[in-house]
């Protein structure tokens, strides 16, 4: 499944400055693993060492937080959008 991944500013440096990129997978986890393969280092602050999601970064499948779906095992479909959203504090 090809999905669109929207990147926050803080991760774009790993992807040549692109705001959104393509990745493939059948679950959110597979999409993130594929993303890491394409852009090494990009998920270092997204996934924990044991493969979970950090609590200061949210991942959305379309407009839904994956924590309220099936977490990283949530199935994705062709054309879905996965967005990575870090906590930011600037004001």
């Amino acid at each position, binding site marked *: 499944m090809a999905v669109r991944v929207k990147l926050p*500013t803080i991760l774009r440096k790993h992807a040549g400055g692109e705001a959104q990129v393509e990745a493939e997978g059948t679950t959110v986890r597979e999409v993130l693993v594929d993303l890491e393969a394409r852009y090494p280092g990009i998920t270092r602050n997204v996934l924990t060492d044991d493969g979970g999601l950090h609590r200061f970064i949210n991942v959305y499948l379309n407009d839904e937080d994956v924590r309220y779906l099936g977490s990283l095992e949530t199935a994705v479909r062709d054309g879905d959008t996965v967005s990575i959203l870090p906590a930011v504090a*600037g*004001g």
Partner: protein
Amino acid sequence: MSAPFTEEQVQRYARHIILPYIGGAGQRKLLEASVLCIGAGGLGSPVAMYLAAAGVGRLGILDFDRVDLTNLQRQIIHGTKDVGRPKVESAVDRLRDLNPTIEIVPYDTLLTSENAFEILEPWDVIVDGTDNFPVRYLVNDATQMLGKPLVYGSIYQFEGQATVFMPGPETPCYRCLFPQPPPPGTVPSCAEGGVFGVLPGIIGSIQATEAIKLITGVGEPLVGRLLLFDALSMEFTTVKLRWDADCPVCGKEPSITQLIDYERFCGVPARPDPEV
């Protein structure tokens, strides 16, 4: 019965008074409302200025910092003549010029776990325009515990987020959105990472809009939805923001029932002496 509008108020607020949905009744609510703006920086500038202009009857502004030349690229409440002055003093001057008919309450202080309840308690609506995680978690927890609506906004480089956290059961708070702060050093500050000057103007204006909507009861508040803005792609997107039944502050069985040490929670060293 409320006092009728003065002749000056009729003129000053004419464009609201004739506006559908706001009208005289909405303007009356604004005049009788009180809003505390935490921070007189990038977000706080448009928040405080639009709320003062709109005639919010009591407007509080809290900041402990002084105006720096590097602030003026985005903190439009301050001017070049104000460099070196306490931000609240500079902000109060600008707000009094904008609208001398409202009450403005300055707090030239840091918000801490010790003073938060006392400072936040008198206000109807709290607007979060701070620039760091410890105070954001503190403001969230204190407003949840006090039962006050919190208008949240946050920015980084070219991107912003905004939402409204309501008190009460089964509505999300900041901890439902981000249960944990990022480890220190992983998210650069504006000073380290830079910030697009117009960005806080956009997000702060959205916060002022939501504060006015909460006060007047007009429209659909930005509750249960997180608004995301990207200045580079000029895209606004909205994602769902859900209440977390396991939230330590607003969940079914809260484990945090009083204010904590937020610097320790966020893993930052004790606050530096502002004079250093």
